């Protein structure tokens, strides 16, 4: 299998804070990777480095053979191939759901309006909210908004999907609907990187888990092994605390 994403001794500082410490990571095409760890462990920064929302200070990151650098053209190319879903949804509030979905395919990928609309309706169907197409984001629940955000990323037909804590801003009953959509997507063979504390999501969607703490990768294993028998004390304490919550 070829690599979808590679990190080679990547370092990143926020001022004096060393958020990523010499990260080496290779995600093969088609792998579903869950990134777990306490807040401040650098897991969000890691996923944001993949599509260049953050720039690393040293080391190399490459996505589908494109090195992530400062050139706007490379970044645009990578971002079209790697869709992202945010914790806070970040839908465009001035556009209807349908226009949120059509905007990038039309304006960035140059898809004709009719095709973009057909594609949008197809993906709305896939996230189980075809009836909300004409509404504005503010008229939807958090879970519905996050599913629209997932559909919006899918509309660019990316080869990689990046999720940055997709269920962390949701009420418990909405977590399930979003989790189910992500798990369904995981069955389709697309490369996925999911940053999450949601153990249910990591267990059901991922075929590999890495555990991060203080900017480093402490564990790299299968979900079964990570959740049943974590190798480090740090991971054990983290999992215990999650179970208590």
């Amino acid at each position, binding site marked *: 299998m070829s690599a979808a994403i590679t990190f080679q001794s990547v370092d990143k500082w926020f001022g004096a804070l060393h958020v990523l410490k010499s990260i080496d990571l290779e995600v093969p095409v088609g792998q579903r990777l869950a990134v777990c760890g306490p807040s401040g462990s650098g897991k969000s920064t890691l996923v944001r480095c993949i599509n260049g*929302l953050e720039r690393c200070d040293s080391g190399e990151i490459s996505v589908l053979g494109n090195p992530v650098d400062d050139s706007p053209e490379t970044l645009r190319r990578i971002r079209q191939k790697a869709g992202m879903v945010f914790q806070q949804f970040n839908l465009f509030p001035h556009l209807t759901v349908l226009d949120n979905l059509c905007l*990038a395919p039309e304006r960035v990928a140059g898809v004709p309006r009719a095709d973009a609309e057909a594609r949008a309706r197809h993906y709305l169907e896939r996230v189980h909210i075809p009836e909300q197409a004409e509404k504005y984001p503010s008229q939807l629940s958090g879970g519905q908004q996050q599913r629209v955000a997932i559909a919006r*990323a899918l509309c660019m037909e990316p080869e990689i999907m990046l999720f940055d804590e997709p269920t962390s801003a949701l009420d418990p009953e909405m977590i399930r609907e979003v989790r189910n959509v992500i798990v369904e997507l995981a069955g389709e063979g697309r490369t996925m990187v999911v940053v999450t504390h949601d153990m249910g999501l990591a267990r059901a969607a991922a075929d590999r888990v890495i555990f991060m703490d203080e900017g480093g990768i402490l564990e790299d294993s299968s979900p079964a092994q990570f959740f049943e028998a974590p190798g480090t004390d740090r991971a054990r304490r983290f999992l215990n605390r999650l179970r208590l919550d």
Partner: protein
Amino acid sequence: MKRHAVWLRANLFATRPQGVLSLTILFLAGWALWSIAGWAVFDATWSGDSRDACSGGGACWAFIAARSRQIIFGFFPQMEIWRGGLAIGLAFGAVLLLWSGKLRPGARLGAVTGLLVLAAWLLSGGFGLPKIGTDLWGGFLLTFVITIAGCLAAFPLGVLLALGRQSQLTVVRILSTCFIEFWRGIPLITVLFMAAVMLPLFFPAGLEADKLVRALAGVALFAAAYIAEVVRGGLQALPRGQYEAAWSLGMGYWQTMILVILPQALRHVIPGLANVVIALFKDTTLVLIIGMFDFLGILHAALSDPAWLGLAMEAYLFAGLVFWIFCFGMSRAARALEHRGRSA
């Protein structure tokens, strides 16, 4: 009827002292209104050729009526008045079309541009119409031209300056900031003086820009600085996630700004933009000091006509009323725009 009685009792006549106070105020208000109406309407003179026609004790509106052509069109040649009227109508139509949100954005912009170009052609002439020098433009027409042209030029420039002030590019940011702070720091009167008197001194011999164009450029640059700061406020109100969402879909800088950021930011700052437009509309009266006769200027000048001496009260009341009607209209239009944005 019963509801009104209940309301009156609760709000005006709840206690004895309150009732007395209410009656006194109602009486004074009624008396004031009656006196004003008597002067302005019932005892007023509405037509006539000179001050002598105004023999009643009331207002002398005959003065306004006799001067109405100048008040609206300035010194426009009599034969070409229709062009002035039509141009005002077209420009008004263009503003309404822009405001209404009818048509798709591209078509709307095209139609508005077309209407305004047509209006400009009617006013200045050429291409088959006799030319009319801008020194003959005046009155309400001039007020209208300065406001509309000033705003239309200032708005895109102001938005660009606001973006420039937030830019990652240091040179662009510094230049935008300097420009804004310079124009915001000087009074409009100074700008107009510079445009009218000083600027021609810097032009090479033979090159001459029309005085109105120079004044318009000054007004537009001045207003652009204010618009830039209003728009920047709107840009800062948007969460960073909106930029990140646009970038992560592969949008570049201009796509992000035009499709995602500006539509939201501008909607947030409609009240501030309306403020700038209303202030600009009223500030057009300052062109009087560089020898141009706008609506107020021409009324002011008419006061020294020997046939109509001593009518300052009528002239300034009329000017105030007209300004108020237009400003209030703009304020309502801006509110309607805000509400339309909210329901969307």
